[in-house]
């Protein structure tokens, strides 16, 4: 077959085989989805398409489409599995709105996407055509009805004999259709297939050359078929980047951050969607001298971690909502006894078991306040996949400097989304230093709080003359159990003071857009890209709206009063529950706000409003945009 011409990296005007044909669209960004039954490999194909696009120099953001069950029934709406890939000329920061191109392995899984408004009139649809000839009459009917419906909805439909074409190469097309489709997309999007070949080799190298060859053949066949039969070409130009890029999802970024922080102990219990951090570490951690402990439960996981911390190794534990709740008592101990630990919470939908695989920003208040008594602690929230890496490195240092837990709140959106970012250059001083085993000055108490900062040095077992008994009971500077009123008051004050000390080192957050206007949208965590894109669109139409994204939630970043003063209205946009103000059954006096809004109202006394939703999927920029326009009367 003919090899495609490569769009080399940074090359915006390829003038060879992929010259502009009448059907070539040149666009600044495009959204493509691949959906299949669970087990048909649409996720793998989507991830590879994302990686290959990043390799070619495009901005990329991918979102996993995950069924709730491991083996849902075939051809069911609930079983849709796949990937959304948004590619752009510039960096892509969020999943965007409706898809431009969708490849569906059957019509039923496509309906699950239609249900969440993932398609729009005009979306180009590539659908497996074999259902038209299915031996089961019911299936044939379903397919025919769906196709008529899709036409009515205004999709550009291409029926594609995926299975029939795959059968020329492999005996079981259920294992290989995804690669054939990947080839098809590569032809349409003018991707360099040699990148795909390299990806396949990497992914399947353990399975042997035969498997690699079969997959390469499938990709090439899909590519050739599309070149022959599909006239459509979509070109998303690339912007060259000077720095080398890596591409990964947020959980892998966090896992690599754990390694780059010099953390040696990860103690965890499996929980969706946090577990893949551990999966990655389990395979890689030993290379940098770390160990992963899968404990018998969430409580034990953090207990083990705090034991390691007490013995001098700042650990990490990785969890999600329900597990985070179970860890509450130990987190309070870490605050009380001042034990450094990094706690990564990959937020999912709650309450209770909630939406295990889906995104929510529901743990902010729990991170800040859940505990018996007052628990001053540091809470951070990465807003990009890149920050999932760097914040983890920073969190370890903060935990040790401020001698306590640091909670890093990510979410299912960051955890499973993939995006390229500048390759981090690991510095030796990112890593934890070796345990101090020098002799301890016996005149220094184990909690000799500096009155100005609340900071103190901790003795590590092995240090002579440093012996002390850590306790979760109220204690004095010498860690002696103390019930005296004044000692308790002072100890609480010292632990709180540490947050003031950190606060004094923080810089005010930067406003995105004008520093003044009609509306300021405040966000935190993974919503950043979508909020800023929405703000951009509204500003283009003259809306005086700006955005502010907070990445340290405890202590809150400085300068908020000053920033808020310059806007007529302030609102948060969050993925958690709040009562809508205009709900006729909501009583204004008891309206329940989104989580950051609660915190900002309490902190600034400003009348901060909110708009939040719990759709279980990331907020599309278009939905935020619509709300902003409504608020601004545009």
């Amino acid at each position, binding site marked *: 077959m003919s090899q495609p011409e490569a769009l080399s990296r940074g090359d915006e005007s390829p003038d060879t085989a992929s010259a502009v044909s009448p059907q070539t669209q040149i666009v600044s960004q495009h959204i493509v989805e691949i959906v299949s039954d669970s087990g048909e490999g649409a996720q793998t194909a989507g991830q590879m398409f994302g990686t290959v696009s*990043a*390799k070619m120099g495009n901005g990329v953001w991918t979102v996993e489409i995950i069924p709730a069950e491991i083996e849902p029934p075939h051809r069911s709406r609930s079983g849709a599995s796949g990937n959304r890939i948004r590619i752009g000329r510039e960096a892509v920061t969020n999943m965007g709105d409706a898809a431009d191109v969708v490849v569906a392995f059957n019509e039923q899984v496509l309906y699950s996407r239609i249900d969440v408004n993932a398609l729009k009139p005009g979306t180009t649809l590539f659908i497996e055509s074999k259902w038209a000839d299915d031996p089961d009459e019911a299936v044939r009917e379903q397919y025919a009805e769906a196709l008529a419906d899709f036409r009515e909805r205004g999709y550009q439909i291409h029926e594609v004999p995926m299975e029939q074409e795959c059968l020329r190469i492999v005996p079981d097309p259920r294992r290989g259709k995804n690669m054939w489709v990947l080839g098809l997309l590569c032809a349409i999007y003018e991707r360099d297939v040699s990148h795909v070949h390299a990806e396949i080799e990497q992914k399947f190298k353990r399975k042997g050359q035969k498997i690699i060859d079969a997959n390469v053949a499938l990709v090439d066949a899909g590519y050739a078929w599309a070149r022959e039969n599909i006239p459509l070409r979509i070109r998303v130009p690339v912007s060259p980047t000077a720095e*080398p*890029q*890596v*591409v990964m999802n947020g959980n*892998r970024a966090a896992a*690599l951050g754990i*390694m*780059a922080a*010099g953390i*040696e*102990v990860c*103690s965890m219990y499996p929980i969706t969607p946090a577990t893949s951090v551990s999966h990655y570490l389990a395979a*890689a951690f*030993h*290379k*940098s*001298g*770390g*160990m992963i*402990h899968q*404990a*018998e*439960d969430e409580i*034990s*996981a953090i*207990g*083990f971690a*705090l*034991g*390691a*911390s*007490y*013995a*001098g*190794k700042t650990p990490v534990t990785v969890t999600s909502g329900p597990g985070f709740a179970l860890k509450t*008592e*130990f987190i309070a*101990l870490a605050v009380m006894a001042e034990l450094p630990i990094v706690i990564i919470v990959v937020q999912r939908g709650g309450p209770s078991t909630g939406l295990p695989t889906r995104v929510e920003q529901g743990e902010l208040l729990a991170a800040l306040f859940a505990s018996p008594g007052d628990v001053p602690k540091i809470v951070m929230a990465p807003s990009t996949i890149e920050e999932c890496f760097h914040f983890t490195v920073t969190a370890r240092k903060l935990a040790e400097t401020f001698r306590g837990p640091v909670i890093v709140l990510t979410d299912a959106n960051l955890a499973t989304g993939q995006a*390229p970012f500048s*390759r981090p250059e*690991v510095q*030796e001083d990112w*890593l934890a230093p*070796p345990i101090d085993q020098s002799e301890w000055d016996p005149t220094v108490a184990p909690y000799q709080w500096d009155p100005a900062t609340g900071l103190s040095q901790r*003795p590590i*077992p*092995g*240090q*002579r003359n*440093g*012996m*002390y*008994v*850590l*306790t*979760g*009971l109220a204690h004095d500077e010498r860690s*002696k159990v103390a019930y005296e009123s004044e000692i308790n008051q002072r100890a609480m004050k010292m632990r709180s003071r540490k947050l003031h000390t950190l606060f004094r080192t923080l810089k005010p957050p930067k406003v995105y857009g004008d520093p003044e206007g009609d509306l300021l949208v405040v966000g935190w965590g993974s919503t950043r890209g979508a909020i800023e894109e929405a703000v951009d669109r509204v500003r283009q139409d003259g809306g005086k709206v700006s955005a502010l994204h907070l990445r340290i939630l405890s202590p809150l970043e400085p300068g908020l009063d000053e920033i808020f003063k310059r806007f007529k209205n302030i609102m948060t946009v969050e993925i958690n529950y709040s009562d809508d103000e205009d709900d006729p059954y909501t009583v204004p006096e008891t309206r329940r706000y989104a989580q950051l809004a609660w915190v900002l109202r309490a902190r600034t006394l400003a009348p901060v409003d909110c708009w939040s939703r719990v759709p279980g999927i990331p907020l599309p920029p278009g939905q935020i945009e619509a709300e902003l326009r409504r608020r601004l009367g545009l």
Partner: protein
Amino acid sequence: MYGLKKDWDLEPRVRQFVLADYQSNVPRWCPGCGDSAVLSALQRLARDEQLPPEKTVVVSGIGCSSRLPHYMKTYGFHGLHGRPLPVACGVRSRRPDLHVFVVTGDGDNCAIGTAHWIHAIRYNMKMTVLLFDNNIYSLTKMQTSPTTKRGDFSYTHPMGAPLNPLDPLSVTLAITNASFVAQTIDWNPMHVEATIRAAHAHPGLSFIRILQRCPHYNPMVWQPLQQDPSLIRLLVHPDGIPADDTVRKIFKNQLEHDPADLSAAKDIAAATDAVPVGLLHRNVNAERYDFATAQGLTMETDERVQAIQAEIDRFLV
């Protein structure tokens, strides 16, 4: 204890620890509390073994006995109710150089912390676990514990405990990878000390259930055993807990039991006609998780950095 020890040397030791080096605050247990005898035995063991106080960590949960770390002049971790074992495993995970002791009670270990008990036994990381079993919750003033005898009064069961007690020995022996299971009595300090000594020497997790008297809330529970030593079955064997003549003279009901015989150990634990005292089971070859958790400890910083760089490179586009 008197005269020359086997390892005596003409040269003075750089550091010679005496009992006072392990003694901290005056214990605030009730007069007559069995905990004091165990504390003394632990301090004597530390002195005899010359454990550097800074290399010794005593981890406890919550309860009367869990106050023990405060009375040791070593490192200590007085943590949460039921959770000393996860903490101790974490301490051990990257610190093979430390001597780790765990102090727990029948409420701490056999009720709220049961999950950790089972899994810590299975992990078999080197540490000595002392279960102080007085069959009652004392710190919280007399509630039923899982080991409270059926029919005994408590404030949570004023009509008498409704169920038969859980047997910590049978449970522990049934756990996969249990490698050292012993029972002793707080009113015989010689046997307590000999048991802790054997436990500390064991390469793995040693579990000792100590029948411990609570003079305040459960004073009668071990009285029959104290008054009639024949109700105690002393386990004797060359591989068992050394029992000297004074011990053998008191406990005439003796059974030759090879601690390698796990099946016999289970029968002994389950027997209702006498209470076993001694070593029920030992397996020095049981798998140890602390060998796995210590992997990579010696890696140098530049090696680590190189490895991380290489790992990041796998994601280059």
